[in-house]
Structure formats: structure tokens, C-alpha cells
């Protein structure tokens, strides 16, 4: 990878700072100038997406963009670096932020939510932190933004400010901060102190595989500290924060708890497996299969739990936990195709799952219904929403011609590359389970008549809610056809 051209450019920093500017605009506008406030969020989201997208041609040409911000320690810089996987993740998050902004306008106004200024302000902050994670060039940098994300999402999770919000917020923060402060931080200082005389950057390009200098036991301990330390990845047994975070308003669940926050977790794990340990070290380690076992167990167990959930958002949350397991599994497989599948799955699942959450929120805005069993006959009343839900479900299940198929395909190929047939079987079983817990939702809505309302008329959610979900549903189809481009961007395949 060393022959890649490195371009010094401040654009990654701009992508980080634009949300801050947007936040200032939001706070300045306040509740009294609601339209200006939404305009500020909107322009911040668009500007961020534009900046991120403007780097795509550079990366496609095989270059890497770097920007040195600040020296954390004399030997560790806060270095931003844009490479293929990071850029793909950043693109996903920032483009979906635009959709979510439009959606939030419809949702928050439709429900007459309170404290919308605070909502938009902290939303912008979390997106800044997400960009930071996507563009981090070493472990300490990624840790900084990881913590920033935990704290800046807390006001969003507890938005309702009531009892449920309190217990949800406690679980959320308890899990995330416990793991990051008690597992991740020691692992970090351990690496920084003991490797190479304590003068190591843990850079994602230069220091790949340096962990191999440790003894076998230390390597395994570190692997587990990292795996569970990044609890945003939702690996069991540290997954309970995600269902708890569903007390947040749906736009938060949609963008943060299906795209930004959880994907930050798996992205960090991808970095750890691919760019800290590196596939060489991982393949030599003896206890390394356990991460794959944990990920597989997470996939299967969470799918089984999802089957039993009647609350639509909770069902989607457990589905997310399972899908995150795919990404971790792909990263842990440590073959090129497996890791390509993992990175692709970040984008593919993001697009599918955000559609599903958008639909859940739109249903709630239009009808006030939260439970799967209440959805009978809704397909006639909200055909666009439920149609999008169907497309999103099929994408998450992984059927062609939808985006989710491509990433699962590469995951399976990656598993076969290292002769792990059982991983393929796990993938198959879990796809089957996906069918069982996702399709009944759409089936109930379309094919079972409502008991109370005989002639449900066409009655969709506000257009600002419907447009984004239709767009993301179409995006799921589009991703299938441009998956080659994405693979080229990730740069993991020749």
C-alpha cells in the first residue's frame, strides 16, 4: 500500500468542522426562527456531503488524503487520513444525514416535538464525531472521536426527558462508557507504552501488525479488550445499549443507531482487525477464531430475539445488532474479500436499515402505531411507506438486485477463502431468520385486512417523511448496480 500518493489537504478537517458551524447556526436561529434553523442543518449536511464527495475522485485514483491537525503526544499526532474504507463510511453517513435532515423536519414538526434546537445542535455534533472516526489515522485519534460521539449522543437519546428516557440513557451511557473507559483505555495505553519502547503512533498504515511483537497471551487479551471495548459494535454481551437507545426520536434511531453510531463501532473494529493487528498477525494467532464465534453467536441470538419482538423499533434494533455482527465477522475473517464484504456491508446495511427506521417513524407519525401486530391493512393506507419497507427488508435479507446481496456475497466468498465453511452456514441460517422477522411486517401490512377500518383511504405521513424513505429505498437498488464502484473505492480488491 506504500506506493499510494499522499495528498496534504484540509478537506477532511472541513468535513469535521462544517457540523460545528451548522450547530452555531442552529443555536443562533433557535426555536423562534425554525425555518432558518432547518436551513442551517440542511446546508451543513449538504456542505459536508459535498466536501466528502469531492474527495472521491482522488481516492479512486489511488491517492490518500492526509491532514495533520494537532500533536496529541510528542509521538502521536491527531492525524486525519482519508482512505477507501473511511471515505465509503463517511460518504454513507453524510449523504444519509441529508436524507435524515429532511426526514427530521417532517417527523419533529409532525409530532410537535419540543427542544428541536437542542436536537439539531447535538445531531450536528454527532455527525462531526462520526466524520472524525471515519477519517482517523491512528488508534488514539479514533478513540478521541469515539468518546466524543458517546457524549454528544446522550442528549439525543434522552430527548423525551421522561422516565423511560432516563433508564434508556443510563443503559446507553453505562455500557458505552464502561467499555470504552475500562476496557479500551487500558488496551490503548498498553499498546502505546509497551510497543517499540513506547514511541509508537499505532498508525493504521505504518504500524500494522506491530502488535505481533507481543507474546501470544498478550495479543489475545488485547484482541478481546479491543473487541469488547468498542461496544458501539453491539457484540454480545455488550449489546443491550442499542435496544435501550430506541427511546430516542426515530430520526436519531435511524441515522445514529442504524448508521452513524453503530457503524462507528464496527468501523473501529474493522480498523483494529485490519489495520492494527493486520491479517498476517491475526491468521497466526491461535485464539483469534473466538472473535468469529462471538460475532456468529451475536448474529444468531439477536436474530432469534428479533423474532419475538412486537415493538417495531425494538425488532429493528435487534436486527441491527445481528447485521453489525456480519461486519465484525467479515473483519475478523481477515481475508481481503471478507474485509471488502465487511466494509461494503457498512454502506449496504446503512441504506437498508435507515429505510426501515424511516418507515417505522413515518408509520408512527401518521398513525401513532408502534407494534407490528397493529399494522394490518396499513399497506393500502400507506403504500409508499410499506413498499419502501419491503424493499428495505429485502435488502437487509440480502436478495438481488438489492445492495445487501453484494456484501453478503463477499462475506461468504471471504469465509470460503479461509475454508471456514461454518461461517457460510451461519450466514445462510441468519438470512433465513431475517426473512422470518422482517417479511411478516410487510406481509401483515399488505395482505391482512384491518379489523377496525374496512376501507382505509390513502393517508401517508407528511411528504418530508415520505420523500427520504423513498429515496433511500431506491438507493438500496442503486447500490446493487454501482457496487463495483464502491469496491474500487474501498481498494481491497485488485
Amino acid at each position, binding site marked *: 500500500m506504500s506506493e499510494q500518493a499522499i495528498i496534504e489537504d484540509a478537506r477532511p478537517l472541513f468535513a469535521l468542522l462544517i457540523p460545528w458551524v451548522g450547530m452555531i447556526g442552529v443555536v443562533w436561529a433557535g426555536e423562534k426562527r425554525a425555518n432558518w434553523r432547518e436551513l442551517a442543518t440542511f446546508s451543513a449536511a449538504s456542505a459536508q456531503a459535498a466536501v466528502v464527495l469531492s474527495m472521491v475522485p482522488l481516492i479512486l485514483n489511488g491517492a490518500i488524503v492526509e491532514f495533520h491537525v494537532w500533536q496529541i503526544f510528542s509521538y502521536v499526532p491527531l492525524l486525519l487520513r482519508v482512505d477507501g474504507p473511511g471515505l465509503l463510511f463517511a460518504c454513507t453517513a453524510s449523504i444519509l444525514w441529508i436524507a435524515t435532515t429532511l426526514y427530521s423536519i417532517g417527523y419533529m414538526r409532525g409530532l410537535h416535538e419540543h427542544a428541536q434546537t437542542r436536537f439539531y445542535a447535538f445531531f450536528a455534533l454527532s455527525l462531526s464525531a462520526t466524520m472524525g472516526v471515519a477519517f482517523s489515522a491512528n488508534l488514539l485519534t479514533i*478513540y478521541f472521536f469515539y468518546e466524543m460521539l458517546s457524549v454528544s449522543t*446522550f442528549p439525543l437519546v434522552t430527548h423525551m426527558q421522561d422516565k423511560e428516557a432516563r433508564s434508556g440513557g443510563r443503559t446507553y451511557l453505562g455500557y458505552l462508557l*464502561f467499555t470504552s*473507559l475500562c476496557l479500551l483505555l487500558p488496551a490503548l495505553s*498498553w499498546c*502505546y*507504552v509497551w510497543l517499540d519502547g513506547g514511541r509508537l503512533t499505532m498508525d493504521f498504515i505504518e504500524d500494522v501488525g506491530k502488535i505481533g511483537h507481543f507474546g501470544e497471551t498478550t495479543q489475545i487479551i488485547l484482541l478481546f479488550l479491543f473487541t469488547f471495548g468498542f461496544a458501539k459494535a453491539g457484540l454480545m454481551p455488550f449489546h443491550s445499549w442499542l435496544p435501550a437507545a430506541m427511546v430516542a426520536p426515530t430520526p436519531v434511531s435511524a441515522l445514529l443507531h442504524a448508521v452513524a453510531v453503530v457503524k462507528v463501532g464496527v468501523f473501529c473494529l474493522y480498523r483494529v482487525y485490519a489495520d492494527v493487528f493486520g491479517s498476517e498477525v491475526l491468521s497466526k494467532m491461535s485464539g483469534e477464531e473466538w472473535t468469529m464465534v462471538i460475532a456468529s453467536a451475536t448474529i444468531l441470538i439477536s436474530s432469534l430475539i428479533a423474532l419475538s419482538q412486537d415493538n417495531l423499533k425494538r425488532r429493528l434494533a435487534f436486527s441491527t445488532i445481528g447485521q453489525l455482527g456480519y461486519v465484525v465477522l467479515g473483519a475478523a475473517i481477515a481475508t481481503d474479500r471478507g474485509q471488502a464484504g465487511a466494509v461494503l456491508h457498512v454502506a449496504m446495511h446503512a441504506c437498508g436499515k435507515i429505510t426501515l427506521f424511516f418507515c417505522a417513524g413515518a408509520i408512527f407519525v401518521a398513525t401513532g402505531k408502534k407494534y407490528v401486530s397493529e399494522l394490518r391493512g396499513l399497506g393500502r393506507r400507506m403504500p409508499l411507506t410499506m413498499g419502501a419497507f419491503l424493499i428495505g427488508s429485502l435488502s437487509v435479507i440480502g436478495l438481488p438486485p438489492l445492495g445487501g446481496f453484494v456484501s453478503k456475497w463477499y462475506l461468504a466468498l471471504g469465509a470460503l477463502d479461509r475454508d471456514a465453511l461454518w461461517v457460510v452456514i451461519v450466514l445462510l441460517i441468519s438470512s433465513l431468520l431475517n426473512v422470518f422477522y422482517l417479511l411478516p411486517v410487510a406481509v401483515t401490512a399488505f395482505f391482512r385486512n384491518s379489523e377496525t377500518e374496512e376501507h382505509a383511504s390513502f393517508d401517508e405521513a407528511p411528504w418530508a417523511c415520505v420523500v427520504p424513505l423513498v429515496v433511500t429505498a431506491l438507493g438500496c437498488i442503486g447500490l446493487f448496480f454501482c457496487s463495483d464502484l464502491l469496491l474500487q473505492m474501498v481498494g481491497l480488491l485488485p
Partner: protein
Amino acid sequence: MNDPIIWIILFPLFGSIAVALSGAWLRKACHPLAVASMLGSTWAAVETLIQAIASPSHEVSYLLGGWSLQLFPRGVGIEFRADLLGALIALVVTGVGLIVALYSRLPVERDTPGREPVYYALFLLQLCGLSGIALTGDAFNLYVLIEVAALTGYGLIAMGSNRAAAATFNYLILGTIGASFYLLGVGYLYLKTGTLNMIGIREAIEAEGASPSVSTQVAFVLVLLGVMIKMAFFPFHAWLPKAYVHSPTTTSCLLAPLVTKVMIYVMIRMVLTVFGVEFSFEYATWTEFMPWLTVIAIVAAAGMALAQREIKRMLAYLIVAEVGYMTGGIWICNYYGLIGSIFHVVSDACMTLCLFLGAGIILEKCKTTRFDGLRGLFIKMPLTMTGFFIGGFSIIGLPPTCGFFSKWYLITGGMVSQRWEYVITLMLSTMVMVVLFFRLIERMHLAVDESGRNLGDGHGDLGLSKDRKRFDEAPPSMLIPLLIAASVVLLVGIYNQDLVDQIERMLQPFNLPTGVHYR
């Protein structure tokens, strides 16, 4: 003014006299005079630090009364010696003093109406004593300055509410016991070495070589015990919460960040300069159990902080826990631990200042600091709360606040010495701090009462009357110092490497174990 080092203490010393005199007929002049003398003192501290960094030996020395080192042996007169550590601590002391002086106008008028001259005179004398402790190079002079700081501290605390007198009495008894232990230890040292100059003592102890005498060991234990009582090390902490809770706002803002931290400095000074690293860390048995004592201290203090239902009291126990952190950093006996300890002295001073200034504002605006009166504070005083919680996040140790970096070095040090009990305790107490501060955030942010009942009628209605929800920020004279303190917390974090460079430069001659295998 060629010797800024002496002006660090002369400004507040003369300032206090000026305040006492002028206050007799012009009470309004007290506050500006106090601020002016602290400005001068801070300037002198900055100058001293610059001089110390620039000079080849990295220290600035000043012989009081102009006695000559050529004519007399060390220890004939008093020497003020600011190495990088001393100058740094002096800067912290004067800087905190300046910010608190700026902040003090309204609370002092409220808490001690009509007694401003006395209050400010004591206030300045206190700073004179504390910065003197950081600068002096003489073990007995250190005792005198400790007593100057302590006596003025008693006065400052006793001016508080009704129960302050009892708290002061408690503090006075324990403080005097601590100081006596210290004095006794210095007495032993003087008998043994025949000098009171710190460097002179160390030279004599190093001359003893591999088998230090019993009297030196006794002296060490006595000094340590005295310092530990003064720094409120658990179980000698009983004086601290009462003293800080019942004292006037300004007093707690001044004493909480400084007194314990300066005593930690004294401990570091004793270990490094007076007894020497070899004696303190290698020949003695206390290195084995001191980390365990700090573990007990941290756990106990964190537990007690959890049990509090009032901000100032909770913060007071937090300080006790932080004292455990820093003491542990010294006694894990290595390079990183000491960097962490010294850094934590600086950062803890900044963040405790932040928190106590914030608590003072809450007390001023809400008339209470009990947890159940805090609902809706984010709406009422967003800026104050931002400042307060920057301090809180620093205590938790979230980057990029300075608390993260000091904790980083402490954890690193614990790992290098393989004192896992200390590392694990740091982790657990970090979680306790998370609970402490996010519980506060919950109280201010949510519409839920203590028993978990929903208040208001949903949709962000906090169940408050209209005037308690109004935007009603603290007066600028209190708010601005808080925001300065909060930005210092962030700046120290961002420029941590520059600070650590100076600490490393200061520690290098001591040849501390680093435990890192260089390739």
C-alpha cells in the same frame, strides 16, 4: 524587579497589608486591590517560569536577605528555589488565585458583608503562604509557610455559615496535628543532618549510602504522616468536606483547588528533593503498601461521594478521591507515575476550580446546591453549565480535557510498575465519576424526580414555574472567571505535551525507572 521569584509572594503580602489599611475607610477598594496584587503575582510567576526554563540549570534561586553561598554553608539562611516544578506550581497557585479574586466580588459582598477588608487580607495572605510553599528551598521555612496558609485558611473558613465555626475547629485540630508531625520530622532531619536546606539534607542522606539510619526513616515517616493529614488523605480526610461545605463560596473556590494539591506538591518535593529518589523508592518498605493505601482511599472516597445529595459535598469527597490518585501516582514509583502525578496536580487544580466556581454560581442563583433543586438548570444557565461540565468531563477523563491526559499517564505508570490494583481502581473510580456527573446531568436535564416519577406533562415540560425556566444567566463577574477556568482546562489538555516536556525535563536528573524496553 530582577528577581520576579520573590515578587510572587511579595505582591500578595503587601497587597494584604494595603487591603487591610485602605479597607478601613474605603471598603470598595478591597476587591480591585486584591485583583491587582494577584495580577502582579501571576505576572511574576510567569516571569519566574520563563526564567527557569531559560536558565541552563532550569532553576531560579533567591537568597533571602542576601546571604552568600560562598561565605556560608547551605542552610544558614533561607533560600527560595524555583525549579521547573516549583515555578509551575507557583503559577498554578497564583493563576487560580487571580481567577478566584476576579470571581469574588459578589459572593464576598454577600457572604461577609462589612468584613471585606479582613476577608481579602486573609485571602491574599493565604495565597502568599501557598505560593511560598511552592517556592521555598528550606524545610523549616516550608513548615512556617504551611502554617501561614493553614492559619489564614482557618480564618477564611470560619467566616462562613453558622456551622463553619465547628468545621474550622475540626480542621484546626487535625491541621495542627499534621503540622506537628511534619515539624517533628524536620526536627529529626535537622538533628541528623545539621541543615534545613532541602538540597543540603539530601546530600547528607545520600552520603549515608545504602543503609540509611533509623532516624532518617523515622523522619521520613513523620513527614509523610504530617503531609498526608494536611492533604486529606483517607482516613485523615474528615476535616475537608465539612470545611469546604460550610465555608463561604469564595473560600471553597480558593482552598479546594489549591490546598490539597499544594500538599501533594510537598510530598513530591520531599520524595524527590529532600529524601532523594533512592532513599524513598528503593530502601524502604512503604513502597509496597502505599499503593494499597491509595486504593483504599480512592474506593472509600468514591463511595462516599456517591452517597452525597449535595453538589459541594460531593465535590469535596471527589477531592479526597483525587488526592488518592495523585498519591498513588507518586508511590507506584516510576517515571510515568510521577509525570501523571505532577500533571494531575495542575489539571486537578484547574478542574476543581471550574467545578467549585460553577457550584458557587448555582448556589448564588438557586440558593441551594442540593440535587433536588437543580431541575431545568440547562435552560436557565446554559453557559454556566457548559463551564461546570467541562470541569466534570475532565474529572471523568474524557478527551481532550486535561483530566484525560493526566489519567493517561497515571494508568501508564501503573502498568509500567505492574501495580494492577491501582490501575483497576483508577478504572472503577472513573466509572464512579461517570455516575456522579451524569446523575447531575440527569437531574438538570430530565423531568423525573428522585423516586422516578414523571413530572410535568411530557414534551420537555420540566414541571417548573415559568420564572424557573427563564434564561437567567449568572452575572458576568462570576460567569467570565468560570469560562476562563473552563478554557484553561481545555487548553492545558490541548497543549499537554508542552507541559509534559517541562515535567520530563525536571524529572530527567532523577533517573526514575521507566520500565519501557527501548529497542
